[in-house]
């Protein structure tokens, strides 16, 4: 069980890093996250789209309508240069948080 704000905060770096590996679309991103997290991180696909739109509005990703193999319209997203830079910053930020957290949580574990 994850807190809502944590999911929201983590969404940006996750999406950006997925897109860094090549363009993707809504459902595939959700599925990817589910697989990579082993099912512990379950995104609501409906709430993914607004996040994608926000990233696009911020200029971190861009989108393109393409025809899917089934012949349906599909909106594909790809990372921009600004997105790559942002990802680097985010990665740095999360590493910092991760390191600090690891230390604190370990001591918390030990003292408990």
């Amino acid at each position, binding site marked *: 069980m994850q807190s809502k704000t944590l999911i929201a905060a983590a969404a940006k770096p996750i999406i950006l890093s997925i897109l860094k590996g090549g363009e993707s679309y*809504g*459902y*595939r991103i959700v599925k990817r996250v589910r697989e990579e997290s082993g099912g512990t991180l379950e995104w609501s*696909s409906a709430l993914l789209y607004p996040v994608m739109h926000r990233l696009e509005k911020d200029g971190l990703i861009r989108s393109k309508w393409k025809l899917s193999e089934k012949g*349906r319209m599909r*909106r594909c997203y790809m990372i921009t240069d600004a997105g790559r830079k942002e990802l680097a910053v985010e990665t740095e930020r999360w590493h910092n948080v991760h390191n600090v957290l690891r230390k604190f949580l370990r001591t918390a574990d030990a003292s408990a």
Partner: protein
Amino acid sequence: MATFNLESAVGEWKKRLFKTPRLEESHVVELEEGLRDEIEDLVSEGMSKEEAFLAATAEKASPEMIGGEFHKVRTRRRSGHPFWAAPPSMPALLGHFLKIAWRRTRRHQGYAFLNIAGLALSVTCVLMILLYVRHETSYDRFHPDVERTFRVAAKSHIEGIGIATTSSLLAGAFEAEFPEVESTLRVRCLNRRFVRIGQRMFKETKVWLADAGIFDLLSVRLVAGNPQTALAGPNDIILSERTAKKYFGDVDPLRQTVIISDTAVSLDGATDRVYQITGVFRDMPSNTHLHADLIAPFPPPSTTSPAKWTSFDTLTYFKVKKETNREDLQVKVQALIDARTLEEREASMGKEKAASVSEKTRDKVFFQALTSIHLHSDLWDEPEPRGNVLYVAGFSVVAVLILIIGCVNFINLATARAGTCAREVGIRKVSGSSRSLLVRQFMTETGLITVLAFILALAAAGLCLPFFNGLTGLRLELNMLAQPGFLLSVLAILVLVSVLAGLYPAFVLSSPPSSAVLKGRIQRGSAGRGLRKALVVFQFTVIVVLMMGTLLVSKQLRYIRAKNPGFDKEQVLLIHDLFLLGGQSAAFKQEVLRWPEVLSISLTGNPPVRPDAAGILGGLRLDGAPDASRSADVNVFLVDEDYIPTMGMDIVRGRNFLRSMPTDSSAVIINEAAARLFGVENLMGRRFSVRLGAGGEITRDPTTFTIIGVVRDFNFKSLRDTIEPLVLFNMPRNLFAAIRLRTNNAAAALDFIRSAWNKFVPGLPLEYSFQDEGFEALHRADRTTGRILGNFTFLGILIGCLGLFGLAAFMAEQRTKEIGIRKVLGATAGAIAGLLIKEFVLLVAWANLIAAPIAFILMNKWLRGFAYTVNIDFGLFGAARAISLSVSLAAVLHQALRAAFVEPVKSLRYE
């Protein structure tokens, strides 16, 4: 079961998304694509299409939420709150509803006026009654720990009369014997004292002797002085702020000296007591059962005349510790009182007699919660007049009824108008409004009208309050409205009214199917016609019942006023406080008799209009009567030989007291009721012995009295009561002088009497009243009820007529075309007016029919409280019928005539 169709399911799902503002087509397409991807994925994992669809949509957030999220991406608002949704603090669409409601209210001003006026009138009534009820039920709730504070009272062995007072010894025994009692308080109310400050003299009626426990139990708050010491010394006294101001103006009252005496003229100063003021307390609020202006300490036990367990002269209050069982304590107190009384009697009359007397004269003790005293205590020796719980209940019912009458108006007018807004409803439905939205829309409209009506009603209540206070003799203030509890109840009523008045119309108005409305298949105004009629009948039933009640009360009171009470109450002047004359009352009597217009004058303790003054003598038995014969409890009047002629009473047997017969000092005259009670044929010359002294005081040894006459029964209590047995003793008292005047020129007589009074006691206040006023005062409560009822009835009629007026206007409008056709075909204006009038007058006639038995039952119940009553006759019902029919006629006549005289061309062109 229908087979699952994925395409249509997805289609439905999309429809919901499209309904959401701010979800653009591209968003929906994207969302759909994601959904289909997921479904395909799930199907490939082995789910059926239906299962896959449900699973995929189940975890999707609601369309509104998705829309909101998309909106957040685009908005520049910092909160990201979508503009189409109401602020989180407001129900959705409230602002829109209010706007529409306001527009509609303005468009139909006449209708809105009728609604608002009717509701405001009824709410005004309700507010007034609520204020009254709150005042009556708020008595004594402000004392500290009031739920643990009680008063001791007793049910006397004499006729089971309840007595508010107890022995002054009880409080001390309480503290000594019962650890569960936390504190006690003794109060003795001295009903009349004269206070001298320097050369000035004041008559005071609210003087208490009380323990210092008064600061703890009754929340007497000192604004000057120290509660620890204020009543510590025997000569300390504390004053109310009001009294301090009256005595000393702006001078500091502390440590000033006042002299208090029983009588104004202290010939020898024997009763004078000098007090020093040690404190000033805040004036007591009106909602407490006893008020004081001066409080002096309770006197220490006297050595010359020790307090007795058998005397009832002290109000005893006590506070118990938490979680004390009241019933247990009551049993223990009863046992204590029984034991102490017996001991006391044994000491004075010997063991055997004491046991038998105590057995016969056991008084039952009970406790009264402090807060219950005002409404629920009906006892002797109550220091102040009490409220009446029946009035509180009765007026509450009237309030509810008037509120319902007001709401009925609203319902009727709203449903009658259903047709006029049917088209609007139809359009709204077609453009996608749901029924629940429409209901909310109409409820908002009701709410708006109710709020407007409430604002008006609050203003009206403020304006009417002085009038209402004059009517009831209460001192209600509008600032009671500002109390949170009261505001809450007003708010509750507001919501109740909105729901009561608005819910049904809202459902009726929103009910027609849009297609039918738009095709014009809905008959305008037909919705709820039966209900409307039923409601009008109900409304007028209530009104007619109220009206009959009012008529009956006024008839009964007229009857009482006109009834011969057995004495001539006219042209008798009562001079009060005769003891002020000291020993000169006989001389005063002679002086007054010199005025030629004075027929006679009697010195007495008991004018017949002062029922509280009558004493009661228990266990009277004629000498020589067998032991088994009835012993009687009788009322006692102390009079002189001029009493019966002055009062204009009749002697039916025997004779009056004679001045020339010295033996008449031990003679008595009884009334017919007493004669019946003794049940002996010839009573003249029969004797009985009672322990009554020449001054009317209780003595140790009995005196023998001889019956010399029987006086015709006269009412010496209110006409609610039957005439009780009464014995008149020939013992003049210096309390009242009853003066019968020959003239109606009371002013001249009064001038003369005042000059005579001033000859004897210059400077002392002369207090007087007229006997007929006193008689009226006995029935004041009933008269007040009558007047209040009358006013509320009038308002009820007014509200009902407002409703009828509105309905008639609507009906006339609705039948415009019909009237036009009738006129073209030759109907006269009279016939058409009759047509419209008949409809309403019939309803009112029905209401009369239903009201009659209800009113009859209620009126009988009320009349049962009176010993002498008028008959409930057809005149009463006839009058109510005539009034209700004529006012309802008046209400609809205008509309009917207007409709009848319209030119048929106009009515046919209508629409």
